C-alpha cells in the first residue's frame, strides 16, 4: 500500500478556529473534508502539507436548508446526503443526479459538495505515484517544467473533472467563502480560472463554507455524464443544460456547460440567436453543433481526444432533448 507523508492533524469544531489554524500554518496547511481527492493525492506526493485541518466537525459547514427559494448547502455535506436529500431532489434533481454519479457509494459517503467544487484538476501525467512521475521526469503542474500534453508553452491543461459544478453553474449558484478577514460570495460561473495548476479563485486562508442555489420554478435542468464504466470513473465529458420554460411551453433562455475537457468548465456561447421559443429537433441539432465547434479536447486523459470531441454534440443534444420532457425539477440521464 502507498504510504502517506507525515502531517499533523487538526480537527477544530468552530470555523474561526479552522481559519486561525490556516493563518498560523500558511502554506504548510491544507483543509480536508472527505479526503477522497486529497488523500490519494498525498499518497502520490502531489501534496505534502505539514498540517491538515479537518472540516468534518465544523458546524457552520453542515446542513441543507431550503430558505425562501434558495437551497443553502453546507460545504461539508456529503455527496451521498446531497443526492438523497428530499429538498434537493424536489428543487434541483439534476444536482442530486450529478452527485449520485460521482465515483461509487463508499466514496460518496465521504466526499463532500465543497470538495467536489474544489476538486483538483486531473491529468494522465499528474495523477500518478512519485515513482511514476520520477520516471516521467515530472510535469508542469508538479515538480517539472514541461507539459507532456501540449509539449509546448507554460500553460497547464489538466482537466477539470468534477461532476457537480456544471449543474451549479447552469443553476446560477454561488459559493460563500470565509477567511479571518471576512467573507465573500462568488458565482460558481466565475469560480474557475483557465489554469490547470490552480483552477479556482480560492485564496490563501479562505475556506469554502456554503453553496447557495437559487431555485426558479420555470427553470429546467438536465445533466449527462460520459464515462467508460458505470461507477468509479471520472467523467470523460459532463454536460449540464438548463432552460427557462414559460407556462405555454415556450423556451426563453438556454444555458449550457461542458466539462471534463480543459482546465475549467466551458460555458457554452453563441446559443442566443438560435433560441426562438422552441426546442424542436432542428434547434437542438443546431445548438449541439455550436457546442461541438467550441470544444477541443486534449490528450490529458488516455482516451481518444477525437472521439471525446465528437461526443460533445451528441451528449449536448441528448441533454437538450431530455429538457423537453423534464419537469421543473430537472432530469438526468447517463451515457
Amino acid at each position: 500500500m502507498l504510504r502517506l507523508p507525515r502531517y499533523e492533524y487538526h480537527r477544530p469544531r468552530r470555523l474561526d478556529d479552522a481559519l486561525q489554524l490556516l493563518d498560523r500554518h500558511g502554506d504548510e496547511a491544507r483543509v480536508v473534508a472527505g479526503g477522497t481527492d486529497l488523500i490519494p493525492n498525498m499518497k502520490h506526493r502531489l501534496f505534502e502539507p505539514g498540517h491538515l485541518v479537518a472540516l468534518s466537525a465544523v458546524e457552520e459547514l453542515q446542513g441543507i436548508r431550503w430558505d425562501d427559494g434558495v437551497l443553502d448547502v453546507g460545504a461539508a455535506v456529503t455527496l451521498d446526503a446531497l443526492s438523497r436529500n428530499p429538498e434537493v431532489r424536489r428543487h434541483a434533481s439534476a444536482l442530486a443526479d450529478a452527485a449520485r454519479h460521482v465515483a461509487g457509494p463508499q466514496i460518496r459517503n465521504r466526499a463532500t459538495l465543497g470538495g467536489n467544487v474544489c476538486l483538483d484538476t486531473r491529468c494522465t501525467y499528474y495523477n500518478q505515484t512519485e515513482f511514476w512521475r520520477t520516471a516521467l521526469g515530472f510535469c508542469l503542474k508538479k515538480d517539472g517544467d514541461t507539459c507532456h500534453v501540449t509539449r509546448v508553452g507554460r500553460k497547464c491543461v489538466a482537466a477539470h473533472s468534477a461532476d457537480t459544478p456544471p449543474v451549479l453553474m447552469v443553476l446560477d449558484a454561488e459559493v460563500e467563502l470565509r477567511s479571518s478577514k471576512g467573507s465573500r460570495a462568488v458565482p460558481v460561473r466565475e469560480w474557475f480560472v483557465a489554469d490547470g495548476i490552480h483552477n479556482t479563485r480560492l485564496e490563501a486562508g479562505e475556506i469554502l463554507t456554503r453553496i447557495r442555489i437559487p431555485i426558479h420554478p420555470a427553470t429546467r435542468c438536465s445533466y449527462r455524464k460520459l464515462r467508460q464504466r458505470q461507477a468509479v470513473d471520472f467523467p470523460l465529458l459532463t454536460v449540464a443544460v438548463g432552460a427557462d420554460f414559460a407556462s405555454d411551453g415556450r423556451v426563453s433562455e438556454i444555458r449550457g456547460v461542458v466539462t471534463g475537457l480543459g482546465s475549467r468548465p466551458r460555458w457554452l456561447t453563441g446559443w442566443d440567436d438560435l433560441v426562438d421559443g422552441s426546442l424542436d429537433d432542428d434547434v437542438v441539432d443546431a445548438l449541439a453543433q455550436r457546442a461541438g465547434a467550441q470544444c477541443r479536447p486534449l490528450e490529458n486523459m488516455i482516451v481518444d481526444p477525437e472521439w471525446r470531441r465528437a461526443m460533445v454534440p451528441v451528449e449536448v443534444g441528448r441533454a437538450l432533448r431530455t429538457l423537453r420532457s423534464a419537469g421543473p425539477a430537472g432530469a438526468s440521464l447517463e451515457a
Partner: protein
Amino acid sequence: MSRGERGDFAVIGQRLRKIDGLAKSTGRAAYTDDLVLPGMLHGKILRSPHPHARIVSIDTSRAEALEGVHGVLTGGELPTPYGIIPWTPDENALAVDRVRYVGDGVAAVAAVDEDTALQALDLIEVEYELLPVVLDPRQALEAKGTYEAGDYIHPPRKEGWNGNVTKMVKLEFGDVDGGLAAADLEVEGEYWFEGTTHAAIEPHCAIGLFEGTGRLTVWSSTQVPHYLHRELARVLRLDPAEVRVIQPPVGGAFGGKSEPFDLEFCVAALARKTGRPVKILYTREEVFYAHRGRHPFDMWYRTGMTRDGRLTGVDARIVLDGGAYASFGLVTTYYSGQLLTAPYDLPAYRFDSTRAYTNKPACGPKRGHGSVQPRFAFEVQLDKLAQLGGFDPMELRRKNVLGSHTRTINELRVTSNGFLECLEAVERASGWKERWRRLPFGRGLGVAGSTYISGTNYPIYPNDMPQSGIQVQIDRSGRVAVFSGGSEIGQGTDSAMAYIAAEEFGVPLEHVRVYRGDTDFTPVDLGAYSSRVTFMLGNACVDACRRLKAQVCSAVAEYWEGDPDAVILRGGRAFDPAEADRSMPIRQAFQLAEARWGTLGATGSYNTPKDVHGSYRGGTIGASPAYSFTAHVAEVEVDPETGVVRVEKIWIAHDCGRALNPVLVEGQMEGSAYMGFGEALMEEQVFKDADHGRAGLHDAPSLLDYRMPTSLDTPDLEAHIVESVDPEGPYGAKEAGEGPLHPSIPAIANAIHDAVGVRVDRLPFSPPRVWRALEEARRAGRLAKPAHPAERVAEGAS
C-alpha cells in the same frame, strides 16, 4: 444436465458451500499480509525508472547508514538466474547489470518499518547508462547489432541470432496450401489482441524467515509453492531439504502468481542477511509492473471452406509481445497455435508464432494461457466465413465439430467432448433461431466456441514423478484429515478435496479437515495452473481415499464375516445394503480398522498418461489428459452515435465432465465470462511511447485507470453445465476454471456485427474504437444490420 450418467453419489454433484467460505467472507481468513512474526522487518524494492539501461554503479552506503535500516541487498548478491521454464532462465532476483523495463528491481532494503525502508530507497544512488528502447515487437524482431550496445534486450542464445527472440515455433499438419487452394471460399484477416493483466484483489506478498541452523521458510501468496521451493533453493544456493514454502490462503491469482517474483527472493535473502523475518507487500503499482498477464498478439489468419461449409485449411502467423523476460513465454508461443485444433476438425493447419522481447513488464499466463487470443481471432473469422457462405454461424460450427475419442490434426488425444451439447444449450437458451439477425438495428447476438486443457500433460521440468500427491489420515474419532499439496487460490480446491473425501468415506463434510500449502508436511502438487487441479489432484485424492477405504471395508467385513465389496460407507454409517442388521456408525468402522491395521493413513498420487501427445518436436505442449469445451452466446446493445457497447447477457454452456459441486462450476463459468467481457470492452495494459512523456512508462498502473468492469457494467450471466463424464477424470470431472473465458470475447465481437454490421478486429471494443468503425461504415453508406442467410438466398434467387 444434458448428458451423462447421473451417478449415485451422496456428496459429489451437490450444491454445497465452500469449506473456507465463511472464514473468507467474514474476514477471518489470514492471508500472507495478515501474518506478523516477532521482530519482523519490512522490505521495499528500488525499481528502475528507465526502460533499458546498464547499471554502472550502485552505492548503498547512505541507505545502510540510515537509522532503522537492517540490511540492503543488490543483484550481485544473488547472481544465479532463474526462470519458470528451465530452458529460459533469464531473470535475476534483482538486476545484476542491466534493467529492462520501467519497474525492474534494482535493490532491496529491510528496515524497522515501511517508511524507513522507503526513505532508505531514496538514499541508494544508482548510476545508469541509458540503452536503446524497443517497445514494438516487430521492431524488436528486426533489430540488428549486439547485446553489449543495447540493440538486444538479452544476449542471443547463439552467435548471429537476434537476442530479442524468446521463441519461434513453426508447425504444419496436413496439406495447408492444398487445402486452401481447394477452398471455395476464403477469409483472410489481421487481428489484434491488446495486453491485459490479472488484477487479483490481493497484491503479492511474501515473508522470509531464516532460522539458526540455516533453514529457510517463505510464506508467499503464490500459486506454485513447489516451483517456488525449487527456485528459492537454486537462487539462494540452499539444499532443497532446508527450504520450506508455506502458502496461506491466496486472494486471487488468475495466473499472475504462477512463477517466482523478486519479492520472494528478496525476503529470503534479507532474512538471511539481517537474522530477522522480513515481509514485502507489493503496492498495486508494483503488481502492474510484476504483470505476467496476457500477451498482446498480432495475428494473421487465413481460413478456407468448401461451399457446403466444411473447413479446408487454416494458416496462421502470430507475433507475441513478450515484454522484458521469458516467463512462461516458450509455452505461450506453442499454446498460441497448439490449442486451436479443437473443437473443430481442422483438416490442415499451420502456424508460425514468434515471441519477441520488448522493454515492458514481462507477459505470461493469464486465465486461458496463450489460447484466448487466437480463439478470438479464429471465432471471428469463422463468423465471417459463415457470413460469406450464407450460413447460420451456429450451423457452421456444428458442421465442423471434432467429435469425441479421437485425435486432433496435431495428434492431441481427445476423450470426452460435450461441445455439441454446449452449442445446443446456448442456442436454445438465447432464443438464437428466432432472434439472431432478427433483433432491431443496434441489438445483436453472437456465438463462439472453444476448448481448453485439464492440466498440461507434462510438468514444467521433465521428470517421471507424479504431478499430484495427497495424503489422507483417519482415526478413531471419525474425522478425516487430508494433507493436500494443492493450491487454494479462491477457486475451491480445498473444498473439492473435502467433497471427495466425504464422498469416499461417507462422513459428514464437517468431519473432513483439509490441511494444505506447506511443503514441510504436504506431498508435492505442481500448482494451480493450466486448470490441472480438479483433474489431477482430484484423482490423487480419490486414489488415497480408496486405498484407505479398502482397509476400513475389509476390517468391517471381517467383523461381519462378510465380503468387503458389500460394505458401503455413506451417510455417516458403514452398512451392507443386502443385510438389514449389518450397519454401524462410521466411527465404529474406523475403530475396527484402526484396531485391525494400526494407525491409518494412505498416500495417493496422479500421473498423466504418456501416449496422448504429438510425435513431433513440441508435440507434448498442448497435450492434456482431457479437454473441456465451451460455447457462449452474447447479446449486446450498441449505441450507434457513441460507440458504447453494452453487453446485456451472456449464456455460457460448459462441458466440465462432471460438476463435483455445480455452485463452484457455475462460479467459475460466470467469473470467466466476466473476465473475458472485461477484456473485450475495457481492459488494456498499455504503455506510453517517446512522444507521450516517456517510452515504456505504464499508461495507468492503478485500478482507477486500468478499468475493469464494476457490477453495474456486468451483464447477466447464465451458466449451463454440460456433463460429458470423462473416462479418466475424478468421477468424470474436467476443468472449469479457464475454458469458459475464451468464447466471451469473440461472441461479443460477433454480436456487435449482428447489431450494427461492423467488424471490430482489434481489442478492446472501447467506445472510441467502435465509434470509428461505425463512422467508417456510415461514410461508406453501409451502416446496417446484416441480412439473415435465408433472406440473402432469397435475394440471390430473385
